[in-house]
């Protein structure tokens, strides 16, 4: 059975997407600060942040007694680049296919 990709799993949850958006706006934030913005506990936020770290979407630094989290945009950039390139390739192929079916033998 194919396993679910950690990045995909990370992005599938709306709370995690919200956390990523928040981190995209701020440079670094603690789990406590992030929890302050959401109607869920600090522990729940910490769990989500762990999932995001596993997917390499979030990095963390210990600053004094706190752990501060920051967004790692590289994984998402790679993904959207691939999607754009491959999407364009298929658009072109399907256009050619449509054309080849329209002008091949048996066409009207």
């Amino acid at each position: 059975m194919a396993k679910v990709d950690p990045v995909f799993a990370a992005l599938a949850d709306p709370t995690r997407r919200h956390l990523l958006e928040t981190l995209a706006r701020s440079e670094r934030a603690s789990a406590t600060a992030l929890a302050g913005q959401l109607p869920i506990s600090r522990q729940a936020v910490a769990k989500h942040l762990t999932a995001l770290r596993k997917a390499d979407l979030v990095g963390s630094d210990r600053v004094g007694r706190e752990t501060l989290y920051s967004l790692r945009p590289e994984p998402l950039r790679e993904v959207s680049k691939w999607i754009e390139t491959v999407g364009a390739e298929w658009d072109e192929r399907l256009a050619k296919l449509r054309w080849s079916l329209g002008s091949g033998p048996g066409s009207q």
Partner: protein
Amino acid sequence: MSGVEWKLERVEREAVLDAPPEEVWESLTDDERLGEWLAEEAEIDAVEGGELRVREAGGGERRGIVETVVEGERLSFTWARPGEAPSLVDFTIEAVPAGTRLRVIETSAGGPSAMAGAWSARVGALRRALLLLPV
């Protein structure tokens, strides 16, 4: 292919084509027809486990293995350029009033977490099976 982690990178396209399903199937499984749209040149052995070889406009090559064949309905194969992560390409054909709906989904086995542990070994094995350059 079970056990390979298919990644977030996924593209889906659909086209309704003005041709009967049998003709669209021919376009997917006949070397010459494939060469009119999929790539510059293509060779496919359209049976499960069959080989696929494609030459692209830029001169690049992709090689792959046919995974699923349901005559007239479904064709899927993996393919990859030498040294790159493979993707899975999955075609479905469906008769519709206007002709044929062709749906294609390409999913990449590559991605941000591509090098994680056991998965990397599977990709390595797949690449060697496809006779691509070693990683």
